[in-house]
């Protein structure tokens, strides 16, 4: 691993963490959504650096492209501004939340530090990584794949049913 690699790894890591902190603290939902897009782009770069080129592309297309567009679309549809939600937690509650999150972070970092990861050899990065992934997806994980397609169908039907105005409400209005 050269210096170029290391510098860029930490650059994208810092970008992800700073953008995540910005997302958590923004009051305006559109600003939060855009910061989250920033996190996702940084993570896509990290995926590519870790040898998962295809997943980096999917991350940009699906997460930054599709899911975040749905989020922004809903924010615009509801016409939410900065002052529609009162973030009126007390200082004590915010402090307690920070302590809990900090403890979780410390615990995770401690556990990761104590793992003997560096002794294991890294698998080589396959330039044509799609073929082994597809092999695994369509043989070993075939049942999960099929179940996922059913899940997507259920989600589409469920979203339409939930978001459509009920007939009852329409009659009451008219």
């Amino acid at each position, binding site marked *: 691993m050269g210096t170029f690699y290391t510098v860029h790894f930490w650059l994208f890591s810092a970008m992800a963490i700073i953008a995540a902190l910005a997302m958590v603290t923004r009051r305006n939902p559109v600003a939060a959504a855009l910061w989250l897009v920033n996190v996702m782009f940084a993570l896509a770069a*990290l995926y590519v650096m870790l040898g998962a080129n295809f997943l980096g592309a999917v991350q940009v297309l699906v997460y930054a492209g599709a899911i975040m567009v749905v989020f922004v679309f809903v924010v615009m549809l509801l016409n939410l501004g900065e002052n529609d939600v009162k973030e009126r937690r007390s200082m004590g509650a915010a402090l307690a939340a920070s302590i809990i999150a900090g403890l979780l972070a410390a615990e995770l970092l401690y556990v990761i530090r104590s793992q003997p990861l560096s002794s294991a050899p890294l698998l080589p990065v396959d330039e044509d990584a799609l073929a082994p992934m597809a092999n695994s997806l369509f043989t070993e994980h075939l049942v999960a794949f099929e179940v996922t397609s059913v899940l997507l169908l259920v989600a589409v039907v469920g979203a339409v049913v939930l978001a459509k105005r009920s007939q009852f409400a329409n009659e009451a209005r008219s």
Partner: protein
Amino acid sequence: MIREALFVSAILFSIGVLGVLTRRNALILFMCVELMLNAVNLSFIALSRLHGVSGQVFVLFVMTVAAAEAAVGLAIVLSVFRHYRTVDLGRIRLLRG
């Protein structure tokens, strides 16, 4: 690099937890959940360098479930907004008693 990637993933996950605990806007809460899912994806991808391609396959599944969750969750937010005219979780408390 695996360990460093896991560090970044742990920090991002904790930031997501912090957001879920402190924010009251339902939409931003959803975004924090997405952030946590992304942090987990990062550790799957990092560990797939040690344990083979299954980790990457699992990331695909997580992304699919996240897309389904976002669609259904946002539809729920939409119908809750129609009823209460707000996405403030402090004011949606039918089950609080």
